[in-house]
């Protein structure tokens, strides 16, 4: 039995926005729904209309899949713990007079720009109802925050910055965040 055009078009809209494995599952469900309406005696076109109406708006389905995307969930958690890690570094920078650390001005600017970009990526992922944007921005944000934390830890270790307990605390907070980001990336990249 050939697939009615309405169902093909509906699945094409989903295929533009969702991974193939998800679309395959939805196609199976939609085909079964259509078949059920045919068995109830509806004409093929009316059965297709009923099946599509029962399934719901494609954008609503895409938005629901975006909400459960592991990368988006990781982005939301990283945004949640971000202020805590940031506060640790802020305490280290203030108490240890970071302005006197031997870090070139350009590097400071680059770190600030990277942080703003990463927050933007994580926020885009956390708020997006578009699956691919939520997934890609989330993965990029996770990688970015892990890289930034690694740069901070490495930088503090290899500069002549004083290693006080506040600095060590900030480095531990960053290490924990790297571990969280890495763990979050596994399910996010598996999809």
């Amino acid at each position, binding site marked *: 039995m050939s697939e009615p055009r309405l169902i093909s078009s509906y699945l094409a809209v989903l295929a533009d926005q969702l991974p193939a494995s998800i679309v395959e599952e939805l196609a199976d469900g939609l085909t079964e729904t259509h078949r059920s309406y045919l068995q109830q005696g509806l004409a093929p076109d009316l059965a297709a209309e009923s099946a599509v109406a029962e399934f719901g708006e494609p954008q609503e*389905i895409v938005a629901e899949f975006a909400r459960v995307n592991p990368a988006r969930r990781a982005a939301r958690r990283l945004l949640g713990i971000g202020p805590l890690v940031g506060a640790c570094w802020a305490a280290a920078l203030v108490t240890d007079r970071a302005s006197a650390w031997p870090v070139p001005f350009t590097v400071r600017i680059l770190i600030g720009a990277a942080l703003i970009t990463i927050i933007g990526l994580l926020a885009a992922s956390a708020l997006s109802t578009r699956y691919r944007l939520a997934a890609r921005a989330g993965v990029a944000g996770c990688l970015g925050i892990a890289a930034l934390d690694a740069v901070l830890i490495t930088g503090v270790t290899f500069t002549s910055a004083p290693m006080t307990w506040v600095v060590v605390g900030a480095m531990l907070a960053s290490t924990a965040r790297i571990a969280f980001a890495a763990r979050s990336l596994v399910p996010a990249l598996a999809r």
Partner: protein
Amino acid sequence: MRAEELKGHLDALLLAALEDGPRHGYAVIESLRQNTGGRLDLPTGTIYPALRRLEQAGLITGSWSVVGGRRRREYKLTAAGTRALSGKRADWLDFSAMVSAALEGRPCPSPA
């Protein structure tokens, strides 16, 4: 029942639909429809992301098979899912008994 009213209970309903054995997405929807007397008013396409969410939470597992030339994803409860369903069922029975008692103006039964 409207979608908004269902949302807080959807996880328990989906877990209950899988209690009798593995089911694919459409069969889960059919089971929900039968068990709710056809009063389920939810875009059925949104059941699939909910199943993925439960899978990520480790409450169900999904596996692929091929049926009639189409790939089909089937879900089954995990041990954690069975425990979660028992907990949600007990919570719901307590909650509904409390609300029923309050609405009918009779003493609330003590929790089980």
